[in-house]
């Protein structure tokens, strides 16, 4: 049994189909699966439903799939960084489902954890609650949210071992661990593949059971907002 593939094209062989649902990890451009996105673009697959907190920027990240009009529907919490998104949405070419960020994260975790529904306070009394089941617990009102799964999850980690155990780095972790658990197939792309036994077993974020395919990727790791301070003296 080998999880290791030479590249994203090989790793996605037999997995892609028009109309499929794909979860893509990352927050902004931080911790996004650049290699899988490019391979999905190159494959020509279309009518995609993409579950991702954001939709990249014009020309980079998921913005590439958007520019090529491969996305039919986005499930996100914030898409404000992307002009082509606005254009397609206003032109009615793109469906959009907003979720509060924490609700989105929990829906994905729930999908991976066999939990089809759960209650949260988030969004009660807002447009987000419309049409959802309301229920009181201890005198407070909550709404029911449902679990999410995907045909494919593409995630980005820092290090992996050949069993697919993953470690993420700093805030590049974000949505990646839950998405890894919620894909029928999960492709992980990493910066470094180490020997079995090199990862600290207590520090593994995503156990290999959640990773069916694995590649060592090449990353631009573009910075979205470069903010700095000046050294004094």
């Amino acid at each position, binding site marked *: 049994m080998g999880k290791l593939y030479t590249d994203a094209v090989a790793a996605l062989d037999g997995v892609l189909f028009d109309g499929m649902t794909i979860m893509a990890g990352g927050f902004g451009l931080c911790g996004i699966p650049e290699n899988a996105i490019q391979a999905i673009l190159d494959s020509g697959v279309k009518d995609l439903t993409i579950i991702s907190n954001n939709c990249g920027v014009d020309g980079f990240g998921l913005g590439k799939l958007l520019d090529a009009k491969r996305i039919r529907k986005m499930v996100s919490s914030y898409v404000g960084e992307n002009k082509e998104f606005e254009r397609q949405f206003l032109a009615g070419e793109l469906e959009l489902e907003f979720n509060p960020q*924490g609700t989105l994260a929990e829906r994905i975790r729930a999908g991976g954890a066999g939990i089809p529904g759960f209650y949260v306070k988030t969004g009660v009394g807002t447009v987000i609650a419309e049409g959802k089941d309301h229920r009181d617990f201890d005198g407070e009102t909550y709404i029911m949210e449902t679990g999410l799964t995907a045909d494919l999850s593409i995630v980005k980690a820092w290090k992996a071992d050949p069993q697919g155990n993953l470690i993420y780095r700093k805030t590049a972790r974000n949505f990646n661990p839950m998405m890894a658990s919620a894909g029928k197939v999960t492709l992980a792309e990493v910066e470094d593949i180490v020997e079995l036994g090199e990862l600290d077993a207590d520090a593994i974020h995503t156990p290999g059971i959640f990773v069916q395919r694995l590649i060592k990727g090449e990353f631009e790791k573009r910075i979205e907002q470069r903010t700095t301070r*000046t050294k004094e003296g």
Partner: protein
Amino acid sequence: MAWTREDMARRAAQEMEDGFYVNLGIGIPTLVANFIDESIDVTLQSENGMLGMGPFPYEGEEDPDLINAGKQTITELRRTSYFSSADSFAMIRGGHIDLSILGAMEVSGTGDIANWMIPGKMVKGMGGAMDLVAGVKRVVVIMDHTSKAGDPKLLKTCSLPLTGTGVVDRIITNLGVFDVTDDGLVLVELAPEVTVDDVKASTEAKFALAEGLAV
């Protein structure tokens, strides 16, 4: 004399207490970090998965794997821990964050807040704002008292789509500080040289005056 943005941020920094875990929104709330009393220990949360957010990096030391919820490059501290988005919002939704300081377009006298969407304009999304107002123990809003067009932002009822209902505890504007109480809005502080009549003239919501308010 109405407060400047910096004055408002400085005033908001007084909401912090020793040992607090705090989430700061984008915009003026981000400035608040600059005014935290150095004698107290405060830990900043960034909802993309970090506790113990440090300042911006020195030039040349930016790390693409280390950003805040506003997608800005930042640094870590010795106390920093990282976690997933699910764990981050479990922390927020579960009531573990002591204080959130957020901007707003409108706030109502009963603590409703609207800060994510203007109908007719492109919808960018609510990000983590709905989770924060619903989950954090204490929600403080910083906003200008009126819109650029001069319209009141402290309203009887919000006109914009809501972020949360009955969630705001305190509002800091350039004119003063208001508490949302069970009996409605109470003006608890005035900016220097601002009068109650000044405030009344630019506030749609009804408000009472706190006992001992220096007018």
